[in-house]
């Protein structure tokens, strides 16, 4: 027979334990936090001390007055009017507006493409399903930067100009730009109510195609997460395929999709900072030029970080609102 635990019970455990003062249930957490806090504090103080000392030596102590000096550089393409005689802050603002422009259009495009491809995964057509899978697997495993360079240098810059340009109904693709509306060839130059530069177009295409693949996965996952029983229940009630999708499946899928979309949207916004690859001037490239001219590294980096943080927060706030809407419908 096994030796039983209670065989021990005759030997008392209660050897008095001496308590070191620090091993106190309520004290220890504070001690740990104090130690960590002190460590971080010392590190930060050390870094900041160095920063101040080094900046003083270089004559670059934090100041913002240089923002009002004339920039002296041009930006090829701006929505907010800008020229070299305007101050730096105006240049940075123009860059920010350019960034916002590509981000907003990119979000719309990527959502459309991603939703379409994500839903294609549920098509009855095997070829379509396969192509959707191929698209996602292909795009997600190639770096965004490489794709942007590809779109710009290999696709858009290779477009012919003038009469040889690629002409589609209502759209002309030429090396000189993308023309939308009713493009007309005037003196071998295309003219249209809406024109996009190839730089902008390639950045937008790259971002849409890249983020679209991730959104497709999010959408597919969201729809797949709706239990099969929901489809069956709807069908047994006599609802058609389209109605089932619209009224039963999509509302439930959205509860999974919307939170995941948030991080994809933010990563698109951050991805737009690779605009330099396409020769498009966004906030980051203006900031880089500004730094090269003024040497104001700390200020420029602070502006950059703050701007992207604000963009992220705005996106998150919007998506949280949307999320609340989607989740509320349930109750």
């Amino acid at each position, binding site marked *: 027979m096994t030796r039983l635990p209670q065989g021990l019970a005759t030997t008392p455990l209660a050897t008095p334990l001496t308590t070191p003062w620090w091993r106190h249930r309520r004290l220890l*957490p504070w001690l*740990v*936090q104090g130690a*960590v*806090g002190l460590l*971080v504090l010392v590190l930060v103080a050390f*870094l900041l001390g*160095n*920063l101040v000392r*080094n*900046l003083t030596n*270089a004559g670059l102590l934090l100041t913002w007055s240089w923002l009002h000096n004339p920039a002296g550089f041009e930006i090829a393409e701006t929505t907010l009017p800008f020229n070299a005689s305007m101050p730096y802050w105006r240049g940075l603002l123009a860059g920010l507006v350019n960034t916002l422009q590509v981000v907003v259009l990119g979000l719309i495009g990527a959502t459309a493409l991603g939703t379409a491809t994500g839903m294609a995964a549920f098509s*009855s*057509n*095997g*070829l*379509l399903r396969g*192509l959707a899978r191929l698209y996602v*697997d*292909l795009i*997600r*495993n*190639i*770096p*965004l*930067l*490489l*794709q942007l*360079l*590809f779109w710009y*240098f*290999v696709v858009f810059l290779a477009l012919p100009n003038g009469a040889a340009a690629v002409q589609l109904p209502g759209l002309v693709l030429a090396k000189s730009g993308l023309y939308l509306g009713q493009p007309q060839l005037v003196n071998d130059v295309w003219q249209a109510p809406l024109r996009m530069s190839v730089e902008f177009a390639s950045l937008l295409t790259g971002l849409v195609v890249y983020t679209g693949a991730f959104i497709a996965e999010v959408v597919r996952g969201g729809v797949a997460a709706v239990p099969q029983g929901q489809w069956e229940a709807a069908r047994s009630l006599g609802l058609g395929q389209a109605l089932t999708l619209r009224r039963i499946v999509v509302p439930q899928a959205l509860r999974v999709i919307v939170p995941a979309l948030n991080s994809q949207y*933010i990563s698109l916004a*951050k*991805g737009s*900072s*690779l605009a*330099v*690859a396409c020769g498009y001037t966004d906030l*980051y490239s203006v*900031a*880089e030029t500004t*730094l090269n001219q003024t040497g104001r*590294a*700390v200020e*420029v*980096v602070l502006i*950059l*970080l703050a701007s*992207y*943080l604000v963009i*992220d*927060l705005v996106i998150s706030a919007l998506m949280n609102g949307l999320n609340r809407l989607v989740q509320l419908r349930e109750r």
Partner: protein
Amino acid sequence: MVRQGPLRHLRRELFASRLDGLISVGLITAMAFLGLALLRWAVVQAQWAVIQANSTLLAVGRYPLDQQWRLWLLTTLLALASGLSWGLLRGLPRPDHPLRLWPRHDRIAVVLLVGLAVVLPLLLQLSLNIQMRWWCITGLLVLCRWAAGRWGQAIPRPWRRWVPVIWPLLYGAGLVLISGGLGLVRVAPSAWGGLLLTLLQASFAILLCFPLGVGLALGRRSALPLLRWGSVLYIEFIRGAPLITLLFLGQNILGFLLPGGLAPDRVWRAAWILTFFAAAYVAEAVRSGLAAIPAGQLEAARSLGLPLPQALIHVVLPQALKVALPAIVGQFISLLQDTTLLSLIGLLDLLGTARTVMANPAYLGKNAEVYLVLAVLFWCCCAALGLGSRALETRLNPNHQPAASR
């Protein structure tokens, strides 16, 4: 289910309805058109000389020619270590599978490896000498795999436990071989380039961001407010900023933050920034894994008398990391892709080197060829990582499910 004939299957998949048929015909036409155009371009128009002439540059950058034997040595050591680990892993008895020296997957992998070792050097028109080196290295790998699989179990168990240690050792040795020191001529980081630099940066960041990320994730779930808020602040700050701005910060401000002379070289700065960047994302992946573990696990461990650190190490983390594995590997894959951003801050990683090649007047306008090769390379690396993670996932899960709750 009754197996249908391929024709029936095709018909159901492609022509189930009239609309499906139309879509299929349209897609097939478009694909044929595109495929033919691509093929014609690849065979007729494309000039692959740009890759052939620059293959060494793309592989190792401007690493001094007379020191390149060190890289060959490192590659050989890596091949030996991989063969050994692979063989030993296969030799492990598994509850769900009969032990086989060459399971099907392994045979496929070997055929692929050998095929690559023969075809790639040929395509790149490497000199016969170099071609033969690749054959030898591949041969060594396969041989080592075979020997370890055959006799690995004969090695006493306590010794076998130490085999994984060769990897960190090898990593250290690799760093020494690449950068010099210990009697070897120093090769400055600025001379590292191409694929070598990309892999070095990615592996460095992957190795270090992992423990950092786990720490941050634990911090974020800690009961201590300071640790929790500190981790949250760090994670959200990093995740809010685009990597390029952080690299920019590293290149332009790190020098100011450290006393003169202490700031690392540009290459190492980028490596550290990549590490700190990836840690925040890994932390979020690990956190999702931790959240999936029921609180009862920690309670059970604690009520058995395990102190908190041991309960985390032996009970909570093994489960959490297993759950988080796909997400973590996903982060490693994006990290590998993110190394391309180094080319934007003037480092000569694979993409940076490629761009210098394309800037060479002799190869002007050869963008498509170069980008295509790079894309294929990255795609293969990332897809392989993804495949590996899925294989590991099934391996870690030998037909047991998590304890049924309720």
